């Protein structure tokens, strides 16, 4: 799924990385604990989270992710946007809650790696 499609499905605002919107991504994960993202996530390129601080970008950067979606109407500050810019990442923000945001992406074909394996 193209990142532009994610933005469209979630009615999300694009904060940075407009030039990367046509990048295709193949799986996603949702988490508020960055410890869990670092421990359990594998090869996902989109992170949906309700946690808003610069360590979210750092975590996504270490995991080679391409896009962060802030859910529940959370807005990234300039520090977060600047870090994401440096890391070549797209930042989106949606008013949807985590469950609905994940559900919309999932039902439109962006599944997690666990499902892919089956």
């Amino acid at each position, binding site marked *: 799924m193209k990142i532009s499609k994610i933005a469209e499905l979630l009615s999300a605002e694009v904060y940075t990385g407009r030039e990367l919107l046509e990048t295709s991504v193949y799986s996603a994960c949702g988490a*508020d*604990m960055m*410890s*869990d993202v670092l*421990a359990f996530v594998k090869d996902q390129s989109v992170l949906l989270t309700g946690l808003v*601080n610069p360590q979210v970008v750092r975590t996504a*950067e*270490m*995991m080679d992710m391409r896009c962060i979606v802030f859910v529940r109407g959370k807005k990234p500050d300039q520090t977060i946007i600047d870090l994401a810019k440096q890391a070549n990442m797209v930042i989106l923000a949606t008013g949807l809650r985590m469950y609905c945001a994940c559900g919309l992406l999932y039902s439109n074909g962006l599944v997690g790696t666990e499902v892919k394996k089956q």
Partner: protein
Amino acid sequence: MKEPKLSLHYDIDGTDFLAAGSASSDTKRILKQSGIDARVIRNVAIAMYEGEINTVIHAGGGTADVNIYDDCIEIILTDHGPGIENVEQAMQEGFSTAPENVRALGFGAGMGLPNMKKYTDEMTVESEIGTGTVVTMKVNL
């Protein structure tokens, strides 16, 4: 062991949790330029980042040294913090002494040290109460 091809040194500022991770980010960028396999780079980056976060949360900062050899990448994290009382216990998934404010920032789930072990080929933790901790990790190339 042979001389490293490249050595990197970073001071980790222990006063600003939100700024933590810059050493790992810089290391990742440099490794990418050296044409090393992307999966190896990711393992190094995750392990080092977890370690860097630990250094900030528990020890008030420290240093990170990265040595790149022909056959492996070595990461050494050194701090002069309080030390780890029981290393075996600290290595267990879910065991954490991180304060509540750190958990609110998305960390402190007790996955740091086990995760560092998981993503590296070798890891040693030397710690002395009141003196500090040295974590040495190796990722084979």
